[in-house]
């Protein structure tokens, strides 16, 4: 483990903040870190850039995190896990809510490699389309219609001509991942799709056995990014 200072914080909304570290982590988009705010729990968070995490408050630790002030010191292990497979062709990023976190990083990374990147971003309401200006080519959907399409990101996905993309990257809540999986499978594009999964994690390094999928895969080590093919026949 090592520790880093939080240099800057952006409060995107009531319950989502981005924390910037004092230095960049050698990492790839899709990887996560185990972050420990002293006196709280250590939790897995995707990198939203080489030197940031974007956190949504859902419980004790994440609440404390989004309220942090610059200057605080946090413990960090990692980066861990299998990253997204990059492309320099056409990429489709599909984000549901806080699932956008790793895709901010992926977006910038792919663009720097010369890829053509389009993002579909869904949330319950407009305020939850956090940091959407990070994405250059963007289509949005909200459950309440407060911005973009009234509906879900899956509805946006269904509008897409999927054959044109070299890679499709999906991250969001479980329900949305499952629906995306079903649709992409139907369209026979699972081979070029990747999904970032979440599971409760204690170690992050493949030993404790808390994050195991049905086929025995460890989300922290074989994942969190899985190819569509890896997930066929696995309940997730």
């Amino acid at each position, binding site marked *: 483990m090592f520790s880093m200072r939080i240099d800057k914080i952006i409060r995107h909304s009531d319950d989502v903040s981005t924390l910037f570290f004092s230095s960049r982590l050698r990492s790839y988009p899709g990887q996560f870190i185990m972050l420990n705010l002293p006196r709280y729990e*250590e939790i897995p968070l995707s990198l939203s850039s080489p030197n940031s995490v974007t956190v949504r408050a859902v419980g004790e630790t994440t609440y404390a995190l989004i309220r942090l002030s610059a200057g605080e010191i946090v413990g960090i292990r990692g980066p861990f896990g299998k990253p997204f497979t990059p492309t320099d062709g056409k990429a489709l990023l599909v984000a549901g809510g806080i699932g956008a976190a790793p895709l901010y990083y992926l977006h910038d990374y792919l663009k720097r490699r010369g890829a053509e990147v389009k993002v579909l971003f869904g949330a319950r309401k407009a305020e939850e389309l956090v940091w959407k200006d990070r994405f250059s080519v963007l289509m949005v959907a909200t459950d309440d219609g407060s911005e973009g399409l009234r509906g879900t990101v899956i509805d946006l996905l269904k509008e897409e001509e999927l054959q044109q993309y070299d890679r499709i990257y999906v991250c969001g809540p479980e329900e949305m991942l499952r629906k995306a999986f079903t649709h992409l499978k139907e369209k026979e594009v699972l081979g070029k799709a990747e999904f970032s999964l979440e599971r409760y994690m204690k170690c992050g390094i493949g030993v404790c056995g808390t994050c*195991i999928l049905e086929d025995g895969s460890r989300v922290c080590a074989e994942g969190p990014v899985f190819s569509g093919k890896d997930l066929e026949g696995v309940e997730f």
Partner: protein
Amino acid sequence: MLEIDVASLKMKSPLVLASGVLGSFSPSLSRVAEHAGAVVTKSVGLQPREGYRTPVIINTPHGLINAVGLSSPGCEEFSKELSKFRGDAKLIVSLFASEPDDFVKLSSYFDMADAFELNLSCPHVSDAGLTVGSDPELVKEIVEKMKSRSSKPVFPKLSAATDYIEVAKAAEEGGADGIVAINTLRGMAIDIGTRKPILSNISGGVSGEGIKPIAMKVVWDLYEELEIPVIASGGATTWRDVIEFILAGARAVQIGSAFFYSYRVFYSIKESLIAYLRKEKISLNELVGMAHKTV
């Protein structure tokens, strides 16, 4: 080629998954079982146990420090989970308790077990583990009771921090079928940035490569003192480490922390062991304890 008997357990290889590593669910146990001789489950007690708050693990260049705190769903839940085990390796269920009768009671939940490991050595839980395993008389009584109720092999797991020869001999007298040595060693780390201990429990158990020489010495000593087989645990990471433990006297070698490096560690070690035995034209049985004969 790697077949070996440990007491009455006929194993397809001397490689055994160590307790607490990937051992809480059947899918990972089954997957590891593919290339293992046996898998040991996470230790289970009578009652569900939360375990400690995270951080529960630290990774260092020399190994891990963990204070998972024997988190467990309890024996009832866990026996349901293990009924899904589909692996083709022996299933060894690891038990923890403080009283002899509780060990016996615990074992009654696990019909699917091929053998039991008794965790008498967890260094970071106050009422079980090492507290029990430092008392030779109590260890003997636990083993005796276990053996009087079931014919399944029983393997007490000891710590290097006790007078392990005395405890092992007591276990042998009590009828133990083999001894597992060693469990993790007490240790801790402090983060100099936050100036606090890293683990929520402050201290934990040190495992991994750094403790291999310490485990080697315990295995060596136990091989000299005991008639029953010794199963090594502590730092084995490569096929060379496995051979080293076997030369020191181990009939089987557990691997835990090395899963940090790769899920395929059992596969690659297995293949390397086969290649080694072929090249050296020697059998596993001949190698067990061989370093004692040449001194």
